């Protein structure tokens, strides 16, 4: 089986897998990064969201052979200690119910805030619509993103280089 070198959460990782293997299953089964979830395998739910060079991507639809040198960030790479402003906001708003979709929600929302530090409700809806939540935590997701936008920059002042 071919060998691939991947840049995951700022580490270089080497895996030996079939070229067609979706990045999702490489992360989960080969690298033990199970925070990224399998929801549909078809690009419909974004439970499998990871950041690929900072943009939210469907890891279930990306072949390992096509990843190349791009930077992959998973939920585990967002912060070492739940200190990312979105994680803090998610806890403050008690967003999760079952929680299964939430890695994908947070990883997707983080890419939004990187681009747009103060998104409107409509902008949040547009950006987050690929992410399904069967438990219906959407209103809290909106609130948490807005809270992170409000509080994140203040608390992180000086330490955030973006």
């Amino acid at each position, binding site marked *: *089986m071919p060998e691939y070198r991947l840049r995951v959460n700022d580490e270089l990782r080497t895996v030996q897998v*079939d070229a*067609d*293997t*979706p990045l999702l*299953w490489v992360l*989960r*089964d*080969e690298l*033990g*990064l*199970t*925070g*990224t*979830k*399998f*929801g*549909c*395998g*078809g690009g*419909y*739910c974004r*439970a499998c969201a990871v950041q690929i060079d900072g943009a939210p991507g469907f890891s279930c639809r990306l072949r390992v052979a096509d990843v190349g040198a791009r930077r992959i960030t*998973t*939920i*585990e790479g*967002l*912060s070492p200690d*739940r200190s990312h402003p979105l*994680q803090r906001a*998610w*806890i403050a708003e*008690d*967003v*999760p*119910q*079952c*929680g*299964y*979709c*939430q*890695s994908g929600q*947070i990883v997707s929302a983080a890419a939004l805030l990187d681009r747009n530090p103060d998104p409107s409700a409509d902008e*949040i*809806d*547009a950006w*987050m*619509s690929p*992410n*399904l*939540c*069967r*438990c*219906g*935590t*959407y*209103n*809290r*997701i*909106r609130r948490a993103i807005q809270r992170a936008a409000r509080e994140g920059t203040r608390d992180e002042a000086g330490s955030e280089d973006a």
Partner: protein
Amino acid sequence: MPERGLSRRHFLEVSGGVGVGLVLSFALPGGPAAARKTAPPGTQELNAWIRIGTDDTVEFFVSQLEMGQGVFTSVPMLIAEELEVDWQRVRAQQAPADDRFGRQRTGGSASIRRGFDEFRRVGAAAREMLIAAAGEAWSVPRSECRARQGVVIHEPTGRQLRYGELAARAAALPAPTDPPLKPRSEFRIVGRRVPRLDTPAKTDGSAQYGMDVQMDGLRVALVERPPTLGAKLASFDASAALAVEGVERVVEIPSGVAVVARTTWPAMKGREQLRVKWNPGDGANVSDESIDAQCRAAIGRTRLARDDGDVDQALAGAASTVEAVYEFPYLAHAAMEPMNCTAHVRDGECEIWVPTQTQSGTRAAAVKITGLAPEQVAVHPTYMGGGFGRRSATDFVEDAVHLSKSVGAPVKVVYSREDDMRAGYYRPAGTSEFTGGLAADGTPIAWRHRMATPSIMRQKGWTLSDDIDGVVVEGARNLPYAIPNLRVGWAEVELPISTHWWRSVGSSHNAYVTECFFDELCRAGGVDPVEGRLALLDGHPRHQRVLRVAAERAGWGTSLPEGRTRGVAVHECFGSFVAQVAEVTVGKNGRPRVHRVVCAIDCGDVVNPDTIEAQMEGAIAFGLSAALHGRVHFAAGRVTSANFDRYPLLRIREMPRVETHIVTSGDPLGGVGEPGTPPIAPAVCNALLALTGKPVRRLPITPVG
């Protein structure tokens, strides 16, 4: 009043151990008969397990399973309230399958409803034992001692001992049979917005779901199941599948043909390479059209479920009548985490890791397949990516146990999304036909409701009393409105499609049809929908109260922008009463858009208001998803809506603002997980009726043209 003390019928174990301190467990194993005599229905399911460490840690084992509904926090809140411990020190774990907990399943919105007093008694018993231990240590009467924040204080002298210091001594004492409970006014935890214990792990990817189970030697399997309803395996050729690198075995099990691999992707890829021949079964011709036709045809065969007054005579004498036929489809639970289970069958033992709503059912399924004794089967519940009723079934457990048994290694069986959506266990489809009669002043005086659905109970092999499936007529048979001539009939539709409990069960469709038809009558009679309801709800104060609160908070009767209307619905199920008012517009594409939902719930008492609000939001999203999009499609015996492209779920851009008002009545406690779902579909449809003048008689809602 049924006997409620912690007496004979409670199993009690007290044991001290190194570093453990006090372990208490309670259950009601008195056997089904004994339990039925003394306890309200289902009370034998209640249990809790407290562990107080010598280091002051307090750990609760929660037998009720967390699927997003918050029980992993609310059960510990009830125990901690009486135990008098600092909430910050509380840790919780899900309890494994263990007979000492009684029957272990989570569903029916029952955990808190039935456990409010029992869980507090468990905490109170432990508290009393700790107080007694302190009294003994100081040789003072226990009446001079008080427990507070994890310490026992000797009030006259101010001496203190921590629970951790008392635990071992307390463990040697007898448990009190009827410990005193705190008055409500002294609650410090219950009734407050307490942050959920499971939230942090759900924000950093560390929460372990069934899908995440990993262990040495684990194999992953996908199962090719019958492609059409009732098809039977004829033969298969595994050679191409076995040629996929990573695939190790291809095994026939009762549900189909399994491809077993070292990891998930080869198992998926290998399954695609399987060549399987199936013999078509009795469902090979089932289609959307045939389902609808069969339901409609069955309407003529209804059996009486309720018959008040004389409907025929009242209809004949009515000033006017209204007729309508409503239709609703099969629905899938579509939990975000597809079904899965890991099993390891070894010599004389079986271990199972599974996202399940039932430790007991899981164990029973494994016992049946392996022939092991129950105590040889260990069940470890994991976090669950949604349940909604689906995970009270055990199809995935059976697959995993069969596979581990035949492969001789731990096996994780994984359903793809398509497997999950095709597996059956749907909310039944059906038809409801109505004839209503109005008096000259517009008051409804006759209500004839004939419904036809498959029978969930019959499919599960349960006995139907009076030949009526009590769960599918729930919410229709007990219509609360004071209509003097009222008849409800039900006909069974036989279809080879498996059905199951779907969040709010019969109420999910019966609230839709009855509350929509009620609005049709209001419209025909020229009566305001809120006024019309209130007028016929005498003797149902809890319905009236939530209806009034929702209407008032929504500004019912006040003007809205052009093109926006309100609709209302009220429904009781699982002991709780919910009214919702939805504000709706129709977009250029003809699709309804729900902007705002005002929701009032009376669930008797409140453990965690934040959880109630979250459950209302979630239940509204769940019901709205069904109203706008939900239908399991069939063609030529095959489910054709197997992923979220053909079975769309509600997305964030479709999510209305939700305002929840909790009405505390001091009435008996009701459930919270399910009752928020039924009213949303009729509230939205009634808003559309007000907007367009046309009733919405079929779900999912088709674009308004």
